[in-house]
């Protein structure tokens, strides 16, 4: 196993191993954009590893150098000269070839809400708004139950009966419906933010970062103000998440 002591072999092994683990060890598979980022970081680290002292660098360089100049490595050299450009060409092809798939998209996570919205003709302040139904702790269960009914009647088709965004319509939509079980959706948001999103839906998203292509319907004409607050309570109860609260003195951190 003496070849394992060669820095060059070590470096290649680390890269291959890392790729295999990241590519096949993560389920569901990590998106290519993230995989590329990870591999770039690991590549950088490997370069640092082999060059962090002189001996190791010399060790790393020597097989490359000898392959390039030594007469007895001629065959390998020729093979590399043919194979490497071919691989690169193949890579270029895969990048340039048109695929029957929309290109990956950058989406803003949570766009900034407006300070206030118009709701049934009256002004409704988003910033600082609290869920009014939470004041009456005794009736919270009742509200959650009502919210559940509203959810099953209106939202389940898209957001799924497990609230995980896998309703039976979901495969038809891009972007897919939000997964409320994920710690990055409603757990990061204030209830007022949800109120805005549910009342105004996809059409109410801000102008910047368009196109949103969101099919999330606007519910302001179909649900009453109270019903929206109820379904919000249900979302948190059913997922076990906590809404983000306003900090003391209407502050909010991130």
């Amino acid at each position, binding site marked *: 196993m003496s070849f394992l002591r060669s820095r060059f072999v070590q470096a290649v092994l680390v890269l291959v191993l890392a790729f295999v683990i990241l590519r096949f060890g993560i389920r569901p598979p990590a998106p290519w954009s993230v995989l590329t980022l990870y591999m770039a970081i690991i590549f950088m680290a490997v370069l640092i590893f082999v060059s962090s002292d002189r001996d190791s660098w010399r060790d790393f360089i020597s097989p490359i150098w000898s392959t390039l100049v030594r007469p007895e490595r001629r065959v390998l050299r020729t093979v590399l000269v043919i194979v490497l450009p071919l691989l690169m060409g193949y890579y270029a092809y895969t990048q340039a070839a048109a695929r029957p798939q929309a290109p990956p998209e950058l989406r803003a996570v949570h766009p900034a809400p407006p300070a206030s919205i118009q709701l049934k003709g009256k002004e409704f302040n988003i910033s600082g708004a609290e869920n009014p139904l939470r004041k009456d702790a005794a009736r919270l269960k009742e509200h959650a139950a009502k919210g559940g009914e509203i959810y099953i009647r209106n939202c389940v088709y898209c957001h799924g009966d497990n609230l995980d965004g896998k309703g039976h319509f979901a495969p038809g939509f891009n972007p*897919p419906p939000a997964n409320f079980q*994920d710690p990055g959706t409603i757990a990061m948001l204030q209830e007022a933010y949800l109120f805005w999103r549910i009342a105004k839906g996809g059409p109410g998203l801000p102008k910047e970062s368009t196109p949103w292509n969101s099919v999330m319907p606007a519910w302001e004409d179909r649900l009453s103000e109270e019903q929206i607050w109820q379904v919000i309570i249900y979302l948190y109860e059913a997922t076990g998440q906590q809404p983000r609260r306003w900090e003391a003195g209407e502050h909010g951190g991130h």
Partner: protein
Amino acid sequence: MTIARRGVWLLVLLGVALAVLAALPVEAQTAAQGASRDPAYRAFPVLGSRLAVWAVAQLHLNFAAFILGVPIFAVIIEAIGWRTGDARYDWLSHELVKLTFAAFSTTALLGALLLFLFVGYYPKFWTYMTSIFFPTYWIYAALFFAETFTVYLWYYGWDWLSGSRKWIHVGLGILSNLFGTAILVVANSWVTFMISPAGIDESGALKGGVWAAMYNYTWMPINIHRLIANIVFGGTICAAYAAFRFLGAKSDEERARYDWMGYIGNFIALAAFIVLPFAGYYLGREIYAFNQTMGITMMGGFMSWLWIIQAILIGILFLGSNYYLWLGMERIPGSERYRKYVPPMLIILTLGFMIWATPRSMVVTLDEARAMGGTHHPLLGFFGVMSAKNTVVNLMILTTFLSFILYRRANKIPTKPWVRTGMAVQWTAFAAAACVVVFYGVYGYFVESIVRIGFSVYQVVAVLGAIVLVMAIDIPMFKGARTTGQIRWGTIAPHSQYVLILLAVTFTWLMGLMGFARSGIRQHWHVYGVMRDTSVDAATPALGYAANVITLVTLAFFLLVLFIFWLGGLGDKGQAEAHGHAAPAIAAGRGPER
């Protein structure tokens, strides 16, 4: 005389700049003819006004950060040299002030240019700002005068105020820093007012005194953030300068000197860099506190992608500065003992970097999104949130500190009887801090966000506490330690010098990017919520465009710096002189085997 030559150069530059400036408004005016008599905007030819202001503002800021940051540590280094009597510190301090001095007039020139651009192309905006801040203009001018005067004295009085009068000289250094910081604070009040205006009524007019407008939400956090960042920036630029001189050095002696300077510059940058994330966090919180919408625009809205780039840049800074320290160990006999720590530290840093750079919501194709059940990955998604980021950044800071500690003791063998205990306590402190950080990081997933925010404070306190404790033991423990050999300055592998240059460029770029974020969150406002931007450039530029502009300006900055340092170096070309007397020798090793 070099001063005379430099003076001529500057005069020529100034003349050209003035001629251009004088021509521009005329040009613009003709373009604006037919518009109303008092236009709110004029169009800067070809580039457009926004781009012109952006580029000049960023350049001015780069230079200003440099000339305000460098004197802070220059005076500390001078004081060290004065107290210890070690001549090389005095030499270094003088070298640093020389660089500052060389960049002084360019800074002022760019500042004036920026002012002219505002007056000429954004007249209505400038009139409004003046209506609020007029009294501070005078303070600013007075401070600038005082600053220039003290720096001149500080620089030219080096030999005159040496010996028994050295305390006066160090005092001058301190004074110039006070003036410099005051300038920064005044200018910050204008910028921060634009982000988070305060002290005005509905119509935008000043309610009380100007103080209320100055003391707005983001003023203090920006003051602190910029002050620290200036030190980091100054450190990296000085290190890059040293690297440049190292690579071009003709003798071992010169190489040794600039190797040492590069090391100190990097050390300063690193020390300040470690606290910078906390200052940034404070700034972010205050932005949220001022306006929730603005906070979300910055972190979650269309600017959220910027933070991924920021994360990558910060990761590079961490990796790069550790790499430099490890390379530097090679010039220290006895450091072989610590080589074995490098791979594990590298692994921690790499994993930390990966988690740190994991985006919250990812760039995905439709198929990938389906497989993941949303834009949030069920597993990697855990790395995207604040808990994970805070945890890994704290671990990376601890690791970097460990690198430094190992570097420090590379050629020392402690002789104190309590060494074993001391070491044990140090390692325990490291382990304890790491445990606290990881514990609160994991625990953070199980509590609501308002509690989680508090956790980051415990993490920071644990890390800073460990740093203080370890240093408090380390200093006495290695006092009078047996040495395994002198540091062979100058024998560091040359590629380490490119790392220093890379760090400087990365940090400059990062500053440009964050500056874009800071001013971009105002969106279509000159003064947020008070004065709308109604010019043709009111749209916030796309990230790609911004990145291109920032890159070009960064390039321009380094070209200018190169030019100025070259001018500054003309005088002492070829002679290894400090100021009148020969530069102190630094124990040099023989030239690196290449």
